[in-house]
């Protein structure tokens, strides 16, 4: 009953100032709309930019690097135990780039409960022969199925089909940049030369576009077995093992474990792409800051209107207090007004925000570097809506808090005597 009475009085006061109330509510609506649209758009862009790298990057990569041995023979000598060694001109040992015992490692990894999938890869530096000109390039031998499953390889093949790579012997999918330079079409044959001087003919079955121009000029793909054939190595020859995990966050600790366990180099995605994490979080931070600033500005609007209402309704407040409404009741009345403005404005804002996001999501967005993206990316995360709703209530509550407090402290005697 008491709540109903307070609601009734609040509503009557709201109605008496309908225009200003609507302006205040519109302020909240506008800020929530922009907040939702901004975060959805920013979130979508972030996801897209991240996926540009993250989709194509293994969570952990196992590889060998040509490095000087960390423990030099002199360190093992008992005669110089405890002494500091100055050894000049250390050279790395002549080691193969392949991962030793790769089949056993892959077998062990597929049984690891953290691992979603394993894709072996062999990288070969080559020259593409175009008449008398040699273009430098890199050919990756891949397991087509694993690459499709783990790294959405198919999405980046803009012409041709990945399945042809698997089914046609001695075939290649060329980077689109390299293909343009070489003026080749699907079905053409090209020649490549390895660093060891071996020439090898390959049939072009598709074009590949990563979105990064520099990569597209050099990068091509063949199957693992083709690369092994080019190099004249056995089919256990693998230079990289790419691992996708179920949970990306454990990558650094797992990388360390694999490094010790398999005696190879292991790099995790966080270390390899630290700048992307930073970029995303800064962009997110900026959009939150802008959104919350908008809300605070709307909060000041509500504060102003409530203050004005209190000055106007001083007499009514005084008489309510004189006839037995306590300060608490008056406080509740004005807080109800503020929260009504906030809730109605906020709810409309959420709806308009969704609408605006959908609209932005319909705007065409074609870019050569992103073959899969046709319109502006939008992230419809429920989280943004929850934050928007909570913040609209909190800011309006704070905006209403001080004017309400002031109203509750009005001394009826002062007002009535002042007449």
């Amino acid at each position, binding site marked *: 009953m008491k709540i109903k009475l307070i609601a009734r009085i609040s509503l009557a006061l709201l109605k008496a100032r309908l225009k200003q109330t609507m302006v205040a509510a519109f302020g909240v609506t506008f800020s929530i709309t922009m907040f939702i649209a901004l975060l959805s758009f920013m979130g979508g862009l972030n996801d897209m930019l991240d996926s540009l790298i993250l989709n194509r990057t293994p969570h952990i990569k196992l590889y060998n690097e040509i490095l000087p041995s960390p423990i030099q023979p002199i360190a093992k000598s008992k005669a110089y135990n405890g002494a500091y060694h100055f050894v000049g001109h250390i050279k790395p040992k002549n080691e193969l780039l392949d991962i030793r015992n790769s089949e056993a490692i892959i077998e062990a990894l597929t049984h690891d409960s953290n691992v979603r999938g394993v894709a072996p890869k062999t990288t070969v530096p080559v020259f593409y022969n175009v008449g008398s000109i040699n273009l430098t390039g890199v050919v990756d031998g891949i397991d087509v199925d694993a690459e499709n499953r783990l790294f959405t390889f198919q999405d980046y093949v803009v012409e041709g089909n990945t399945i042809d790579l698997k089914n046609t012997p001695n075939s290649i999918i060329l980077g689109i940049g390299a293909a343009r330079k070489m003026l080749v079409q699907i079905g053409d044959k090209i020649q490549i030369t390895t660093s060891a001087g071996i020439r090898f003919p390959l049939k072009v079955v598709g074009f590949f576009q990563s979105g990064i121009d520099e990569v597209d000029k050099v990068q091509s793909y063949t199957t693992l077995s083709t690369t092994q054939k080019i190099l004249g190595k056995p089919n256990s020859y693998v230079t990289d093992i790419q691992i996708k995990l179920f949970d990306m966050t454990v990558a650094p600790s797992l990388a360390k474990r694999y490094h010790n366990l398999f005696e190879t180099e292991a790099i995790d995605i966080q270390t390899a792409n630290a700048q992307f994490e930073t970029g995303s979080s800064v962009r997110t931070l900026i959009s939150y800051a802008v959104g919350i600033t908008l809300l605070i500005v709307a909060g000041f609007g509500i504060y102003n209107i409530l203050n004005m209402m209190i000055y106007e309704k001083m*007499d009514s407040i005084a008489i309510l207090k*004189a*006839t*037995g*409404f*306590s300060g*608490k009741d008056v406080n509740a009345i004005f807080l109800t007004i503020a929260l009504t403005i906030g809730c109605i404005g906020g709810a409309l804002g959420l709806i308009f925000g969704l609408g605006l996001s959908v609209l932005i999501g319909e705007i065409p967005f074609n870019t050569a570097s992103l073959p899969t993206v046709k319109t502006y990316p939008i992230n419809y995360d429920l989280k943004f809506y929850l934050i928007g709703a909570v913040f609209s209530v909190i800011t309006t509550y704070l905006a209403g808090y001080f004017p309400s407090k002031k109203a509750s402290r009005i*001394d009826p005697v002062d007002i*009535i*005597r002042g007449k």
Partner: protein
Amino acid sequence: MKKKTVIEAINICKSFHDPITVKVLTNVSFSINTGEFVSIVGKSGCGKSTLLYILSTMDTSYEGDLLLDGTSMKNKRDAELAKVRNEKIGFVFQFHYLLNEFNNLQNVMLPALKFDKLSPEEIEHNAYEKLKILGIESEALKYPNQLSGGQKQRVAIARALINNPLIIMGDEPTGNLDKMSGDVVFNIFKELAEEYNQSLLIVTHDLDFAANTHRTITMEDGKIIGSEIGTATIEGKR
């Protein structure tokens, strides 16, 4: 008829401290019984309004004691005093202070809805009754700004009556009204006192008004300097 004391002031003193200490009330003591129609008169600035606001519990910074229905109002919390005002005191001010957002009936109902003892239907019925006593039940569904000054003041009186208070207090209730409307209001007060046994305490500077009440308390410089039986009582004794 058994006389019961409804309100009693005991040695009430009050000073204003801003900007310098000025004593406005000095040892004010008196009491009012059920059904008594008392007026307070005095020159402006003599402290009569200040006294009224202390008696009405709205002003709490004073010395001395105030008994309402036998209970001390000292050391009560704000919310408790609000409850006392709601249930036991009815107010009529010089200005009507009706809420323009509500119609007259709703204005009258508000304090009762706050009291929350009866159902809204009963409250509405009571509000109609009170408006009928004041002869303005036909204006019930109009809004305050559609009424004349005298009518507004009568709605305000109905509002003061709605919770059947122990006492009605008035601060120059006829001050803003013309002679005729003033007389109507005065007659209503008198009727309330004599027919409904309602206690009334009215501050006024209208000596004619005061002379027709049961008792007139005269104040000067914050002190009570006289208390005389009004003509109404003499007539009443017949």
